[in-house]
């Protein structure tokens, strides 16, 4: 499993597994995704696992006009990992 930090540059509809709030434009997040690291560090995400995010501050240079939030706590990681530890996802498909 790999953990990667990234900054989302647009409203995405993604949400934080730690606080349950939506991630807003410009906030930094830690992205958790289960997968295999292949040759040359190429990452191959596993199917049937969600991608999970945790708030990780207000941006790399802290210059964004967004709420600063840090959810990458042990409790946040525990909640995130619980969501990765599933076999499937039930929910509405819109059909």
């Amino acid at each position, binding site marked *: 499993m790999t953990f990667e930090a990234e900054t989302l540059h647009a409203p995405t509809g993604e949400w934080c597994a730690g606080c349950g709030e939506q991630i807003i434009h410009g906030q930094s997040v830690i992205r958790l995704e289960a997968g295999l690291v292949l040759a040359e560090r190429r990452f191959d995400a596993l199917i049937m696992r969600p991608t999970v995010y945790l708030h990780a501050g207000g941006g790399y240079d802290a210059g964004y006009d967004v709420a600063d939030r840090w959810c990458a706590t042990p409790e946040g990681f525990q909640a995130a990992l619980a*969501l990765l530890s599933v076999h499937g996802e039930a929910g509405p498909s819109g059909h």
Partner: protein
Amino acid sequence: MRHATPFADEALGSPLRLLVIAPTATAEAAWGAVRVEMAAVDAALSRHREDSELILLNHASPGCIPVGGRLRHALALAWRAYRSSLGRFDPRIIGALEAAGDRAGVPLPSSPARLRPEERWLRADRHRRGVLAPVDLGGIGKGLALRWSAERIRRLGVRDFLLEAGGDIVAAGSAPGGGWRVSLAGPDGQRPLAVLELPVASVALATSAQTRRRHIIDPATLRPVDGPARQATVAGADPAWAEVRSKLAILAGTPAGTERAWWYGADGRLRATASAREWVAWEALSPSASSAAC
């Protein structure tokens, strides 16, 4: 340690996934059987294909045409759901569904402006069927696809598998480390509402939601339902009936009469029947999500 082999593709316009615990050759045979069944259901029951049997039946309305076994089964189930729900579940809402914006892109004959209650809209003789107005089988098609796919998997001697199609699930046997664990997504792609632990040998989960597409139509008004329940998940033995009951839960506003159900209301609270609550791993969610639980 038992190993689960994963497979994934798309079917019926939605993601299709299978986890199966079996020797490699058997697992691949199970996946092949699922894909064959999904393709057959799509050809028979889809409202998104001009050449599906369902669309041909709708265009023949009110006349009768020969139809295959899958469509006969689906129509019979839709009829029983219509009768047992006293018309709350009504497949004749297809015109209103399209008018509300959930368009399949397939030309249809016009639907009646009002649905006559107690109408015997299904006509049948031995191998022919007819409908007095165009119909949409909606989730019944997906539920039956899951039912028949699961039967094919079991005929291969496989006991432990999890099959998922567009958010509906059939779980059988157990996972490598215990019970199958499933996250329950919220409406409109919101954060997961809960993590469910499925402790029984075989169970189906079906979810209906009044999402932005507003595709659940009240047969009494032919307008999108605007009740207090935004999303409902029902657990039962059969995926097709679980699908019917989840839709009825949205139409009724609460999932009364269902043995295991979770529903998410317009007030943002997640609720569960007493028997369903024990299946929910509330602690797996964030503090704010847990505080919303009943």
